[in-house]
């Protein structure tokens, strides 16, 4: 009935509890403090008492868990569950979400110092990862067929993933490209816009012509272009926008007047 592991941790619990009480009384514990966790009276030296009583609680928890799982002995578990043998661990499919989650965590860490926008981005990433991870974990155990599990998962999640990923991808690319255009000269912006369009068009033609191209090659090309545009966007955003020509001082004066009027109105 009681497993070896349970006996070990239960014995440890008793020993540590007795040790804590003895230590409490021997270091100045008063009344029934050492036996009531300090509720009625002092426990003596609180550090040593805390170490011992903490160890006792931890051992008690281990004892409870370990007897519930029958020392995690598959033979004992199968006996209690009335089956021949416990199934081996469920195969888990590969997934990008753990890595994306790690990057989301890193973004949250950076955001705590760099600014709330980065933190919120990390939080959003981690929230998305939590949803996706949960669905993946569910799908892995849905049926005994890995292919069917994948199809089931995709049927539920793809209607959400594709539009969201598409919108995010377009938004990021548009934002990065706009930073490049704003940094370049007028003519440069036209050239950049043409170049990016030609590259995207070229990739489309390439894929249409060679639909069975190696997945890694396609992923590499798309990644290279995406990274180049995003990196360009970051660099140019840091560098700032080009000087825009305004129509004389009127523009600034108008702004100044507007602000002062708004200020007065608000007062």
């Amino acid at each position, binding site marked *: 009935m009681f497993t*070896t*592991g349970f006996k*070990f941790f239960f014995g440890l619990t008793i020993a540590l509890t007795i040790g804590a009480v003895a230590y409490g009384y021997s270091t100045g514990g008063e009344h029934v403090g050492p036996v009531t966790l300090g509720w009625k009276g002092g426990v003596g*030296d609180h*550090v*040593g008492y*805390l*170490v011992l009583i903490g*160890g006792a609680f*931890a051992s008690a928890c281990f004892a409870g868990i*370990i007897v519930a*799982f029958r*020392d*995690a*002995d*598959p*033979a004992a578990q199968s006996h209690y569950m009335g089956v021949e*043998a416990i199934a*081996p*661990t469920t*195969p*888990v*499919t*590969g*997934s*990008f*979400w*753990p*890595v994306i*989650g*790690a*990057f989301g*965590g*890193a973004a949250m*860490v*950076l955001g*705590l*110092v760099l600014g709330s926008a980065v933190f919120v981005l990390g939080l959003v990433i981690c929230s998305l990862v939590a949803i996706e*991870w949960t669905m*993946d*974990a569910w799908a892995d155990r849905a049926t005994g067929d890995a*292919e069917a599990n994948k199809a089931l998962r995709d049927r539920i999640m793809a209607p959400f993933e594709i539009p969201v990923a598409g919108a995010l991808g377009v938004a990021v690319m548009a934002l990065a490209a706009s930073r490049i255009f704003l940094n370049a000269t007028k003519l440069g912006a036209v050239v950049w816009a043409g170049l990016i369009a030609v590259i995207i068009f070229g990739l489309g033609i390439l894929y249409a012509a060679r639909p069975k191209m190696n*997945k*890694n090659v396609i992923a590499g090309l798309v990644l290279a272009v995406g990274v180049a545009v995003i990196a360009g966007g970051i660099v140019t955003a840091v560098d700032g926008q080009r000087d825009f020509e305004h129509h004389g001082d009127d523009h600034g004066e108008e702004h100044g007047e507007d602000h002062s009027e708004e200020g007065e109105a608000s007062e």
Partner: protein
Amino acid sequence: MTMTESPPSEAAESSAAPLPAVGGLYDWLTTSDHKAIGRIWLRFGALSLLFFSVIGVLISFERLDADAIDVFGGVNSYFQMWSLYRFGIVLMVAIPLFVGLATVITPMQVGSTNIAFPRAALAAAWGYVLGSLITVISVLSGGGWGALDGVSGDEADAIRLTLLGTGMVMVSIILGTICVATTVVSLRTSGMGLTKVPLFAWSMLVAGSVWVLTLPVAIANIAILYIDLSGGAGLFVGAPNPSFDVYAQLAWILDQPAVYAAAVPVLGVAGSIIPVVAKGRQVSHEAMMILIGLAGLLAIGGWSQPFFGDERDTLVYIAFGVAALVPVLASLGGNGATLVAGEAPVGIPPAHMVGALGSMLLFLAATAAGALRVIDPLDLIGTTADTGVLNLVAVAAILGALGGWWFWAPKTDGRLFSGIQGLGAMTVLLLGGVLLGATDMIAGFVDTPDVLLASADDSLGDAMIVLSMVGSIVVLLGVLGALGAIALAYVKPGEADDDPWGGHTLEWATATPPPAGNFAEPPARVRSEAPLLDETPGDEGGES
């Protein structure tokens, strides 16, 4: 639209075919195989080992003559590198190397097809990589764990980032450790009760439990420091101008007893390797388990954190400091008895044997130094004896992890590492560790201060600082030798059998390199702690 659809026959064919194998970066980012996940920890841990060994040499060079040498460009920069080395060598090198080794080996040792929560294990591995990068980059940007001589606003931000990066590394270690510990507790194969768990797996369960109990306390310290620095309250760290007190609030994790937890797996590595070298069973497996458990218990250090006051002069601190010596010494005795009782071949010992025994000796030296350090009349706390204990523990853990890596290389990397190169590297590393620890201890006896960049007031202290620098160079040479041998094994891979050492535990029942799922067939019911030494059921007429 129909142009994009596959013909029905082709679609049916593709759905029936297995998913194409995709290698390289894709696998590193998405894998759910514990062996690949463990390799992420091991390889980044190895790179970190090289980086921090170089930092260690530069620091010791700076200490030679504080006035004449200016390696880092100022007292704050020196302090940043000094503290980076200390946090890095424990949290980004020693512990991650063991987590990596355990992530690869432990599931096979307990007969499981995979680690528990493989996706969490992958997230932990990448979290460790990113957290380490954030920490190091923030320190190089002027951050660190506080400052000795005032900082600018940007540097105060970098200090907060360093703290958060350290926290991220700790969270990743906890997550990775939970996966390993859960595997040992709940995924053991048929017949493998807790008392039959291999010693390395047991030591990781013990050390992992200690890390899981200890690191959250440090994370709480970090949260308080971050809030204090961000809010500008300046309750105890001098905000908005962070001081040395930031480091002082976290230094307990690098101090005994907490720092011993980084080296507890050394006992498991040695306990797994030595019986194989001795060609016999461990003399008393259960006694060794108790000793490892006791070593772990005495390495619980969360209570010694100084937020509520300095605990280093209490009876408990002294008792923990002295008692930690006992299980390590007894464990060394147990392994010695196993060697004597076995049939170890006479001659040049294998590299993993030197790593295992050397790491135990260094861990013993660390606990002995720690026992001396807590003796109040010797007045060693606050001297270079602090660094001496830390260095002995760190080099013990690194040597143990490298010894284990050499031993389990057929399973971790699918190839053998060079025995001769490994033997040389580990011997050099052992000598370097002894030199580093001994000189810092002796310098501590003549009151050489630990933190501040100041010369010793004693010629003996000065001589020890010079020898300490030699020790750190020797350690770097050992690290270069070991990592060079590992790199060379990829250039010229050595043929490895499934079980080149005559191993006793289930990981040696797998192929080399182990396939996905580890075992072609589920392992037979385990009847002892060394299942491969047991007679097969057929030998005794079937299993009862």
